């Protein structure tokens, strides 16, 4: 359970004063964030703002220098295994083995996560992302868009309650991007909590329930999607994310 801090139990994900410095750089300088279950948070921010670092910490790939991260009051440090069981990551790297088939890849992850009835689960997911016909093809033969779809299937293997997406749209053509966007909407409908990091303003804004902008390791802007005026937001976005002002 949490380390003696007062946590509001209505929050699903709670991040308090999260700091991370490494290699002489202060990547995160005190992040405070809270999400309810079922939220879809889109995070924008210039390069080097710390967005990937933040996601990596939540995914347990990096250890925080200080601060608290908790899901449903389970603190990251003490419950690393539970975190990994309920969190999934989709990034521009597919995390798939090129020489294995789609089915073999999913089966591998199903076994790793100790899924009950793995064969059935794999089939179900392949059908969900529309890759069942190509289940016996090697990932090396897939297009980028198909790899991304399979990556989504991989991320759903463990029925995650929190899905982290690190610039999933990068490198995708328009068609695949639309497909991905629709997939994300579907995921969100399934009551999963989602954090999306992207540079794609349009797609990022579409499904969001909360929007944040990270600059230099701090949350510079954070609002409920409903409160954002679309016309003005472009300005705001470019103010924080746009080119450097000298």
């Amino acid at each position, binding site marked *: 359970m949490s380390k003696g801090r007062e946590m509001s139990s209505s929050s699903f994900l709670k991040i308090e004063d999260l700091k991370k410095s*490494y*290699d*002489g*750089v202060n990547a995160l300088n005190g992040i405070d964030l809270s999400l309810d279950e079922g939220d879809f948070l889109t995070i924008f921010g210039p390069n080097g703002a710390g967005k990937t670092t933040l996601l990596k910490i939540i995914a347990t790939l990096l250890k925080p220098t200080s601060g608290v991260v908790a899901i449903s009051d389970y603190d990251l440090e003490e419950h690393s295994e539970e975190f990994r069981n309920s969190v999934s990551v989709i990034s521009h790297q597919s995390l798939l083995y090129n020489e294995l088939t789609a089915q073999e890849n999913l089966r591998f992850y199903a076994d790793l996560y100790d899924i009950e009835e793995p064969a059935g689960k794999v089939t179900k997911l392949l059908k969900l992302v529309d890759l069942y016909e190509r289940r016996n093809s090697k990932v090396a033969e897939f297009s980028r868009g198909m790899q991304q779809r399979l990556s989504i299937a991989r991320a759903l293997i463990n029925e995650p309650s929190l899905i982290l997406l690190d610039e999933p749209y990068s490198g995708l053509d328009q068609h695949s991007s639309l497909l991905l966007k629709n997939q994300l909407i579907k995921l969100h409908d399934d009551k999963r909590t989602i954090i999306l990091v992207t540079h794609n303003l349009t797609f990022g804004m579409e499904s969001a329930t909360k929007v944040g902008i990270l600059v230099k390791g701090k949350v510079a802007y954070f609002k409920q999607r409903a409160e954002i005026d679309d016309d003005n937001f472009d300005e705001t976005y470019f103010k924080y994310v746009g080119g450097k002002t000298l």
Partner: protein
Amino acid sequence: MKILVSIAASLFLIAIYMIFSYTPTEAVMGIVQKIFYFHLPLAFTGFFSFFVSFICGVLYLVKKDSKYDVYGATSVEIGVVLTTLVLISGSLWARPIWNTWWTWDPRLTTALILWLIYVAYLILRMSIEQDGKRASFCAVMAIIGFVDVPIVFFSARLWRTIHPVVIQKDKIALASSMKLSLLIAMVAFFALWTVLFKLRTKTLFLNERVKRLNNKIL
């Protein structure tokens, strides 16, 4: 710092005086035996250096404080220099006495393998850009390298008992005057080690500060 340097310098002067004037020349080996007064302290301080890097490696992995990485790396650097001198002095000693440039005596063999292990450490250090990764990897290498030392020594020993060698290097009778010179030489070398350690770590810490300031500006 200046005091330390002058202490080390004077110790060295005293040591050199004692080695060459105070102690008598050894009967069997002649003046060449004087190398021994350098060779042995070099070996001890070299070994000590690697021991320090082992401890620093462990401390770094536990505490993740980059100062242990700096201390550890410095120790390895000094250790490699000292070990190189051990090998050279051992060789210089062997040639006139036993008419061979190299002996597979356990201590010299251990020194050679240590040299290889820690030079590899330095090569590794040069090939990683990211500080955190470099520190972790080097800490692991420092630990693994040192863990190997007893095994290396014992296998070299074992080899020797199976191939008895005519060289009886360890059976040098040490007159008390020789023991005193040796002791002074030891202390002198440890003082030298401390001077080198402080100088080098100071440089490395300054490097880090410069890097951090650079990052801030950019």
